[in-house]
């Protein structure tokens, strides 16, 4: 590249009026309000047979494959043991917040949202309600405030989550996630090192059926790996990112 080219590149980059960090976050009040507005609008569902729908492929096919291969029960298993959805009201259409789950105590994961001053109790006027853990139809773990007779899950047409949804494999991947988070936090980890770290961690926690997808394009602008967990697909994907975003 000539010096003239270098200068043109530099000038163009310096002319960038906005860095991503200056853009609003999805968790900002405006971002959250837009999200709620969008999901309350009707979706034009594609008229495909159910087995060709993306959700069905993600959730049903791997679950079925597992059931055949490993003898797992399809019911009472969480599709994503790394997250739990906390609902503000005992209704599937109420405001929801996804939080990370460590261990299998779903209620403890959501309860801080009702602490005085927090998202579901901003004025601190009401004590935290009793909570109920349910399993959504897609297999996601969910927590609702209890109503009346305390049979919230059934009232919503959902299974009660008993804690048995979090199996050994779930606990193991949670441990892997926690371990790797410590390695990747605030550090730029290159592809080769990231691949080795993830494989070691998977081995250490006995996750033999899992694979590492390192096919992303790592470049000089995006030299650092961040990790994306696909539990149904039993895959950890290394996503190339710039050094500023690697944490």
């Amino acid at each position, binding site marked *: 590249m000539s010096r*003239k*080219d270098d200068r*043109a*590149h530099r*000038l*163009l*980059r*310096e*002319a*960038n*009026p*906005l*860095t*991503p*960090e*200056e*853009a*609003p*976050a*999805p*968790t900002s009040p*405006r*971002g959250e309000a*837009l*999200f709620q*507005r*969008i*999901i309350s*609008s009707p*979706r*034009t*569902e*594609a008229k*495909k047979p159910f087995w060709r*729908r*993306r*959700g069905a492929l*993600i*959730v049903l096919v791997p679950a079925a494959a597992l059931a055949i291969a490993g003898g797992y029960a399809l019911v009472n298993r969480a599709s*994503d043991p790394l997250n739990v*959805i906390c609902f503000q009201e005992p209704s*599937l*259409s109420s405001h*929801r917040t*996804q939080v990370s789950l460590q261990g299998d105590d779903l209620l403890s994961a959501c309860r801080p949202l009702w602490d005085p001053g927090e998202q579901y109790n901003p004025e601190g006027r009401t004590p935290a309600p009793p909570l109920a853990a349910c399993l*959504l*139809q*897609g297999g*996601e773990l*969910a927590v609702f405030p209890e109503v009346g007779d305390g049979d919230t899950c059934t009232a919503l047409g959902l299974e009660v989550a008993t804690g048995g949804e979090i199996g050994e494999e779930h606990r193991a991947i949670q441990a892997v996630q926690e371990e790797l988070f410590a390695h990747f936090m605030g550090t730029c980890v290159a592809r080769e090192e990231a691949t080795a770290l993830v494989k070691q961690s998977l081995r250490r926690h006995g996750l033999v059926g899992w694979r590492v997808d390192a096919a*992303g*394009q790592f*470049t000089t*602008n*995006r030299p650092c790996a961040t990790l*994306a967990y696909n539990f149904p697909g039993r895959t950890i*994907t290394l*996503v*190339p990112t*710039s050094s500023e975003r690697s944490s």
Partner: protein
Amino acid sequence: MPSPVSELAFRRIYQAHFRQIAAYARRRLNEDEADDAVAETFLIAWRRLDQIPEGPLALLWLYAVARRVVGQQYRSTQRRGRLVSKLAGLAREDNSNVGVGLEQQAVHEALARLRPQDREILRLAEWEDLSPSQIAVVMGCSANAASIRLHRAHRRFERALLELEAPIELAPPEEQAT
């Protein structure tokens, strides 16, 4: 009522890419128009959730949608005769006397002189930090075509910049006065 699976899938996409799409829109439009464009982009994503590819390609899919939305928004603004749309860094021209140097003004002016396609491919490469193969996905062309277009756009940008800078850098003071 949306299914929890759809909503969760959409939330993941929204949380992962909202910032990049908001930045994309704000680099090209004023704040209010950009907010409208972001809303429209994600509304389309919500309605076409089944068509969004997995993984890093999702962001490119969103950029492609945002590009069309921003284009429509800009044309609509032009039609209304309100040139408040902030093309490239022209947004900064209003504030040109508060901190943007002559060199930066020349860059924005040079960008504004380019054809829209050239301008967009340069911004995708330098501002959104996309590689030619990623630009190809966003612009709906082959990676080879994207590389060639990017190269040509760079040449045209350099020429436009040189033309703008020539009187400033080369002309002696007495000639500038005449």
